[in-house]
């Protein structure tokens, strides 16, 4: 081959497609190959070359592997959109699967498995059956993976045709790569099946342990991960396994090492001999430490895992704390993890060394890292009683440098140290008070105020100090207000003199009458009542001795830790979350986008969704098979055309007091994506469920775009939604899709809307009241604001002539104007673009004195036009907007919309 591939990207003057077509049918092999390359090049940059399908497929029958691969690449990409034409390829596929060349046989099976067209899948079975028993290991290993592909398309077919048995036979194959792929395929199938497909018996165990020594590094990981599900019978069994796995710790591939560590840790739980356990711990330490010499990305994964391991078995790395000292060139995400492990490994023996490090870190440049280092010192003080004093003196040294954020962080941890060691270190309070006026972060302020209140009797000028905060009480964040309230009450109870008495009145007044915060108000009323009825009781309550705290921050509870340790060397161990909280491939949420092999493919939303819809028809759900989620394997349907809502039972109606409204079962998944939405139902009022939503206009249609986030502890499903009567009669038009939400999971939904369904009477309002419920929680209500711009239709453009005519035909009483004194238009071009994007169309412009006057038109449904005149001086504040419309009652809403749009 000569020249550069990039020449294929150049275009010619003549029509590209006809020229390619000609070249594809050339009689010269080289020319055809070049042509296919050009086609692939076009495909990768997102051009639609699907019209060449037949011509490309004609090139498939060739002995030239390079050309054949290119054609296959093309097929995988376009077969989905041309299912009927794809059938043309079947014959060649089947023929290729019997080719004397094993590479061609394997290629045929591999490619067929990637084409998710049912008609092709039918033809796949026979070749696959043959290839699973092929003489060549390359073909067998490819066939093994192909079974997993087929299972993903049609699980029933795999079970019916006995492919599972064939796969299991491959576990005993003499080629380790075949074994590894068979294991990988079986493990995946097991994951998605609820019948036992792949059980590891002691027999398979020994076979796999033998294959382990022969496998490629990746195969070793597949096998180790599959074996980690094996439950050893007894301590001896476990010891035997560990003995076979231990040599893997010497592997250069970090993934092999971590998977081996996981396996050993699991078996260790069963081993009773302390000698054996101690010996194993000793063997695991060096390889774990060596992981920290790898690339920073790997180090990060290793550190997250080590964090878990040392929580269960601190002895493994107890003597290795030095390797966790931060290097100055470590990326910040590595440094943060190292700090966490240093705290966990800190002991009376090494604390001096550790403190020296922390002190050094606390003077570095990276603010987040410095804060964490300061906090680390405090946590060590809380953890190690004998070292507490040394830790505190380091903190005081740091405070003296007077770097603002260091001081604030130090004060926060010192508050905790006081809670841990009451009546021990209060002598430092004077030093802390020196920094009082530099505090500007809520948490630091709150901590300092807590300290002042708690030790009011020992601080001579406690009342003055608190008083200095009181002036700004109304502006303080809630956290600080709450502490101020409590501290003032404490001060009053400890020193019931005139000063504090006045202060308490100011505070109580502020915290009851002047506030909107219910927490603050409630607390203030309780204190008030306590103080006014029984001051002694108040003392007992407010000044009661507090329980001593311990350092449990960042310590996982033992059941969670168990689960995470069982998931060492998986993503779960990096996030420190159980798999079910983030794994969304429960088929239900997986939206197939087959046509997506290349960036910016030519298939836009429409062609894609139509192909999905077609596919949905072509492959009926296999719900009878008893396989869970099989129904959800259907691709998500395209958003249906707007239609009046079907009459459905009224479940929520009487709760919001309205009648006959659309209730839409929310059970279909959608792929999460899109811009951030405003929070309308905060988790605090939705019992953990948070809902963000916004009305949007897309492709000429109005949608309600929602984001559900399940912050509660239980899975939520069966979402339903309903809209109250509103000015525009907005109601849901079609199926909206929200999958069952696991705790911590989130899902987006795009709900098509219709107008003029349940119109409310009275003056126009942008209020949209929404009710949402699900099977687990009662109805939640929230209010949304309808953005008027969502109604501007695509056909709102007017000719100059008709604009003038309409303007004249409307009576002057229909003209309304409004000034926006604060708005500045800096670039008219950008503003015009923005308005046009919202279907407000520019018509003309003229100069009037030094001002520019612009004319626009827009239209809302039912053909109500808006004629708009904007007057402004570019770059100077002040925009005047005048409109003339047959619907002047909508003017306030319109002005709101235009203000938002001009501001951008």
């Amino acid at each position, binding site marked *: 081959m000569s020249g550069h591939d990039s020449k294929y990207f150049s275009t010619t003057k003549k029509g590209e497609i006809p020229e390619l077509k000609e070249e594809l049918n050339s009689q010269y092999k080289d020319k055809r190959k070049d042509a296919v390359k050009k086609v692939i090049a076009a495909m990768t940059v997102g051009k639609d070359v699907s019209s060449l399908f037949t011509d490309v497929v004609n090139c498939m029958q060739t002995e030239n592997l390079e050309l054949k691969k290119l054609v296959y690449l093309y097929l995988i990409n376009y077969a989905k959109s041309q299912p009927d034409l794809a059938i043309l390829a079947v014959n060649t596929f089947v023929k290729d699967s019997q080719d004397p060349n094993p590479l061609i046989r394997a290629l045929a099976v591999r490619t067929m498995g990637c084409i998710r067209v049912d008609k092709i899948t039918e033809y796949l079975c026979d070749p696959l059956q043959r290839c699973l028993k092929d003489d060549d290991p390359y073909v067998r290993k490819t066939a093994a993976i192909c079974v997993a592909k087929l299972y993903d398309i049609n699980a029933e077919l795999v079970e019916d045709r006995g492919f599972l048995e064939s796969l299991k036979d491959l576990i005993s194959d003499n080629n380790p790569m075949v074994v590894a792929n068979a294991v990988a395929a079986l493990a995946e199938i097991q994951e998605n099946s609820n019948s036992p497909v792949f059980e590891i018996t002691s027999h398979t165990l020994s076979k796999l342990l033998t294959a382990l020594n022969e496998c490629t590094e990746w195969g070793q990981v597949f096998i180790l991960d599959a074996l980690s599900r094996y439950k050893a019978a007894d301590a001896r069994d476990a010891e035997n396994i560990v003995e076979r796995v231990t040599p893997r710790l010497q592997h250069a591939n970090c993934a092999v090492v971590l998977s081996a560590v996981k396996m050993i840790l699991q078996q260790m739980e069963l081993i009773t001999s302390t000698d054996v356990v101690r010996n194993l711990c000793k063997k695991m330490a060096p390889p774990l*430490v060596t992981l920290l010499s790898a690339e920073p990305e790997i180090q990060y994964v290793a550190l997250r895992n080590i964090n878990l391991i040392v929580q269960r078995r601190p002895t493994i790395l107890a003597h290795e704390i030095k390797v966790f000292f931060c290097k100055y060139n470590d990326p910040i995400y590595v440094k943060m993890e190292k700090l966490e492990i240093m705290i966990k490994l800190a002991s009376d023996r090494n604390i001096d060394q550790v403190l020296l490090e922390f002190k050094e870190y606390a003077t570095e440049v990276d603010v987040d890292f410095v804060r964490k280092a300061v906090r680390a010192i405090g946590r060590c003080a809380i953890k190690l009683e004998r070292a507490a004093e040394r830790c505190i003196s380091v903190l005081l040294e740091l405070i003296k440098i007077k770097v603002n954020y260091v001081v604030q962080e130090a004060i926060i941890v010192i508050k905790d140290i006081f809670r841990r060691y009451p009546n021990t270190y209060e002598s430092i309070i004077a030093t802390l008070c020196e920094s009082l006026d530099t505090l500007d972060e809520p948490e630091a302020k709150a901590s300092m105020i807590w300290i002042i209140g708690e030790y009011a009797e020992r601080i001579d000028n406690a009342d003055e100090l608190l008083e200095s905060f009181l002036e700004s009480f109304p502006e303080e964040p809630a956290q600080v207000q709450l502490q101020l309230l409590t501290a003032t009450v404490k001060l009053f109870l400890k020193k019931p003199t005139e000063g504090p008495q006045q202060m308490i009145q100011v505070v109580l007044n502020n915290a009851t009458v002047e506030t909107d915060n219910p927490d603050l108000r409630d607390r203030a009323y309780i204190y008030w009542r306590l103080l006014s009825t029984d001051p002694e009781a108040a003392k007992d309550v407010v000044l009661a001795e507090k329980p001593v705290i311990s350092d449990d921050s960042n310590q996982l509870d033992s059941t969670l830790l168990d689960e995470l340790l069982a998931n060492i060397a*998986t993503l779960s161990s990096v996030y420190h979350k159980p798999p079910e909280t983030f794994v969304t491939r429960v088929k239900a949420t997986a939206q197939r986008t087959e046509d997506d092999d290349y960036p910016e493919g030519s298939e836009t939303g429409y062609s894609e969704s139509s192909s999905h819809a077609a596919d949905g028809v072509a492959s009926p759900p296999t719900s009878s098979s008893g396989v869970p989620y099989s129904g959800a394997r259907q691709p998500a349907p395209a958003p249906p055309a707007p239609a009046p809502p079907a009459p459905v039972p009224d479940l929520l109606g009487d709760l919001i007091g309205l009648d006959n409204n659309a209730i839409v079962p929310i059970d279909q998944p959608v792929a999460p994506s899109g811009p951030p939405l405003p929070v309308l139902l905060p988790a605090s009022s939705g019992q953990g469920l948070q809902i963000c939503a916004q009305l949007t206009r897309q492709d000429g249609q109005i949608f309600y775009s929602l984001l559900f986030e399940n912050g509660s502890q239980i899975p939520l499903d069966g979402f339903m939604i309903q809209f109250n009567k509103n000015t525009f009669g907005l109601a849901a038009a079609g199926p909206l899709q929200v999958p069952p939400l696991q705790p911590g999971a989130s899902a987006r939904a795009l709900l098509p809307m219709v107008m003029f369904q349940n119109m409310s009477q009275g003056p126009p309002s942008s209020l949209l009241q929404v009710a949402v419920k699900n099977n687990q929680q009662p109805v939640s209500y929230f209010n949304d604001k309808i953005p008027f711009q969502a109604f501007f239709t695509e056909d709102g453009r007017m000719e100059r002539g008709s604009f003038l005519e309409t303007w004249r035909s409307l009576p002057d009483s229909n003209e309304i104007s409004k000034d926006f004194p604060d708005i500045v238009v800096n670039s008219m071009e950008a503003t015009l673009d923005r308005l046009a994007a919202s279907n407000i169309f520019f018509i003309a412009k003229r100069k009037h004195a030094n001002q520019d006057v612009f004319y626009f038109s827009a239209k809302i449904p039912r053909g109500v036009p808006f004629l708009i005149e904007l007057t402004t001086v570019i770059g100077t504040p002040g925009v005047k907007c005048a409109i003339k419309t047959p619907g002047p009652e909508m003017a306030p809403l319109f002005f709101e919309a235009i203000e938002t749009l001009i501001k951008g």
Partner: protein
Amino acid sequence: MISQFFVLSQRGDNIVFRDYRGEVQKGSAEIFFRKVKFWKEDGQEEAPPVFNVDGVNYFHVKVVGLLFVATTRVNVSPSLVLELLQRIAHVIKDYLGILNEDSLRKNFVLVYELLDEVIDFGYVQITSTEMLKSYVFNEPIVIDAARLQSLGPASIFMQGGKRMPGTAVTKSVVATEPGGRMREEIFVDIIEKISITFSSSGYILTSEIDGTIQMKSYLSGNPEIRVALNDDLGIGKDGRPTYDYRSSSGSGAVILDDCNFHESVRLDSFDSEKTLSLVPPDGEFTVMNYRMTQEFKPPFRINTLIEEAGALKAEVIIKVRAEFSSSITANTIMVLMPLPKYTSRASFELEPGAVGQTMDFKEANKRLEWGLKKIVGGSEHTLRAKLTFSQESHGNITKESGPVSMTFTIPMYNASRLQVKYLQIAKKSGTYNPYRWVRYVTQANSYVARI
């Protein structure tokens, strides 16, 4: 298993994109790029290599300014994916000779062909360049190497060291040389990265050597190779002899804390003769990684002195002494020292007759930067900097400046004293005598002196 693999340029352009399972939505590359770019609003913090957005897990590594990314929806082994991404970069580099945006774009057909053999349905299949040769048929289009930066630690041989042939760095292992037959040669590089922390009194707080023996073979017919290391090499802290202070500098056994090997390495005679035998696969690969915390002689000593000269002035004196043999020259040395935030000005004074040195006070991050082109073993260099402050220092200058850190490269030097005693290539005929290059280089990883 993974769902998608893609390579993005620094600007976020898709250079390569392959979807293996079609279960992650379109636009994942864009979602990923936006997330990484705006991880923290202030742009200060780097995104971790693994994160989850809306149920999709994203993995990435940075290789020569390109982002290699994989996505998945399931609970996979993250180290497997990250290793894989590094490995894919390596394989592509082996094939193309040079890895960058241009070479990827010019060879996109080859790259897709490779990706299809490396991963099937999201499962890793083959990542060895040697094995891939049997299944990949496109030939690389080698792009002009002269003006390009390259990948991997071996690239250090490009700079400075004229004694060393730099071709191995940018040569494709599969493309034939334009001048006809490929030269029979093999490169063995011993690359060590040193991390040291000196306390303010010059005492060594922590020290570590991360070493690797890399091999790149252009030998035809894949003959067996034997690599002999130091006779007295020991492994594991338990293997360390009774503590002998003299052993820390100069002679004595080399004791590694831990090491691991490439899977092609046979260790039959490692324990007895400290010899590795292997049939090197084509392409660049790591024969052995090792780690050592045994005391060793640091190549440089750094001495920093700060003297206050009135309330708003101070003088900083930095001395760097090279403690290695005068036959060795370190190059591209950079000494960095953060100064107090209220430093407003710095003026510099070098020793008389100094050449090839640059000094700078970086206003933005208040950092002193002292660059030296080379330092000959045994020599000492000094920099004096007069600082002016915009506010009084309250005697905290020492606490608010430093630590002093250093980066350097020392060719033909290694601190661990690990050596390749000989490199034996199984002979095909009497006249067969390929070129063997054994090269040593030491670099600073985290070389820090506190003040």
